[in-house]
């Protein structure tokens, strides 16, 4: 990324202070969001989300496996994010490892819940086939194709859309089959079930520049930030995850204020996403 001159930095900070950002948005406006589902034919569920110039793809793949002995009635879910070199030369080779790890951990915290399975975005018992013996392992992969700021929000939206798009095959295990070795699982019936994603939270990142917070920062605005707080909020306006980035210290009252602003913004974002995802699914069914 080309560096910013002192004049450009001043312009960005001044604009944010006056509630008029460089691209004309207000502080709490998102860029136009485009959602497309079913973009990866081999995956069981996939989605592409574009927020301005930021483009991310999420895919969900299901594999047959044994469930965890401590949670026999649930499938296992794992989540990883990687950044493609197409987003910029800084992601070439191993350059993307640090950012990928940071994004993966933040998303895992928001979406996968704790060790006991509490607080997960969706109920993994929908992935179970035979209690204690057979289940689906869900691998959620995120890929950043083009990076122009606000990657966490875009990835959260893409994963929500990909999970909505996922069709879990209905597996019929013949009665009386021994399940201690590899059983013959019948997947020939083309029926599928869907995952209930109404509980999947959205992620809202608030970036503090000067004395004000903005939502959906571009990478130029992010370079001017003092700190950023990402809040993951679900439909019931409950907080599912919280991450603070950036070196500057924040007064606790400011953090509480940021959380309430994020909660307010999340409602609009949730509605917008739900309608975009529904439209994308309808489009995909038509084609």
């Amino acid at each position: 990324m080309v560096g910013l001159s002192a004049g450009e930095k001043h312009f960005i900070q001044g604009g944010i202070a006056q509630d008029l950002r460089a691209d004309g948005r207000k502080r709490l406006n998102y860029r136009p969001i485009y959602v497309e589902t079913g973009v990866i034919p081999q995956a069981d569920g996939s989605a592409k989300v574009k927020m301005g110039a930021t483009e991310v793809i999420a895919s969900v793949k299901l594999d047959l496996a044994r469930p965890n002995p401590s949670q026999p009635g649930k499938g296992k879910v794992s989540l990883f994010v990687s950044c493609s070199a197409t987003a910029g030369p800084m992601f070439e080779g191993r350059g993307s490892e640090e950012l990928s790890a940071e994004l993966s951990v933040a998303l895992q915290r928001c979406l996968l819940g704790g060790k006991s399975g509490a607080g997960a975005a969706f109920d993994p018992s929908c992935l179970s086939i035979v209690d204690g013996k057979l289940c689906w392992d869900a691998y959620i992969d995120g890929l950043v194709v083009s990076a122009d700021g606000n990657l966490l929000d875009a990835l959260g939206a893409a994963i929500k859309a990909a999970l909505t798009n996922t069709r879990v095959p209905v597996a019929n295990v013949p009665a009386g089959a021994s399940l201690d070795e590899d059983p013959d699982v019948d997947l020939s019936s083309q029926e599928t079930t869907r995952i209930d994603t109404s509980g999947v939270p959205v992620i809202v990142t608030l970036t503090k520049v000067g004395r004000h917070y903005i939502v959906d920062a571009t990478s130029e605005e992010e370079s001017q930030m003092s700190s950023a707080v990402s809040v993951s909020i679900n439909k019931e306006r409950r907080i599912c995850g919280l991450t603070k980035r950036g070196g500057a210290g924040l007064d606790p009252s400011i953090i509480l204020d940021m959380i309430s602003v994020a909660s307010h913004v999340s409602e609009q974002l949730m509605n917008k996403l739900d309608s975009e995802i529904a439209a994308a699914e309808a489009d995909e069914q038509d084609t």
Partner: protein
Amino acid sequence: MEYVNPEGIREDGRRPLEMRHLHAEIGTVARADGSAVFEMGNTKVIAAVYGPREVQNRSQQLNDQALVRCEYTMPNFSTGDRMRKPKGDRRSTEISLVIRQTMEACILTHLMPRSQIDIYVQVLSADGGTRSACINAATLALADAGIPMRDLVTSCSAGYLNSTPLLDLSYFEDSAGGPDVTVGILPKLDKVTLLQMDARLPIDIFEIVVQLATEGCKAVANYIHEVLLENTKQLEYRRGL
């Protein structure tokens, strides 16, 4: 195993000399100097070009021409079974090298000395012919970036199964273990820049299969021409001409 049934139809419903459906889009990655998405059937590839720009590693700088670098990656989810190690494995390194050499031959590198051109190719969905799709995507991305080239490079694969030459193999046909010939040509100059084959073929059949792949390359070149022309019209329209 039957790859071409007695009526002459392949596993995905195509005829032996039929290519898969092609689709391309230019300019998808806004931050890159040039970018393109290229689809051949279910194989979907995105390429981004950054350059010409200053050489990052001074020791690699060439004083009389541009340095061309290429990285090819396949993410975990792109193939049927989820892969373990997406970057740096030997197949990726080999394909990166192949794409770099093919593109380097057609870029007019002597016009941009002491600079660097980076081509990043990311496979989104792999269903056979990824090498060819990558080269086609890279050509479009370089054209979108405005990098001077001798000619477009287009690529296509062909094989020979059940005694029938087949054009544009899918993953299912490729994994049959039969011969897989990948050809890359400069369509206007009518020259071959890439030729790779595995398995065995008698020489006379080899000539037929290479000829078939070359015809496929020319069909891809026609499509790429149309896409670039349409893109230029859109640019003119936006400038108000």
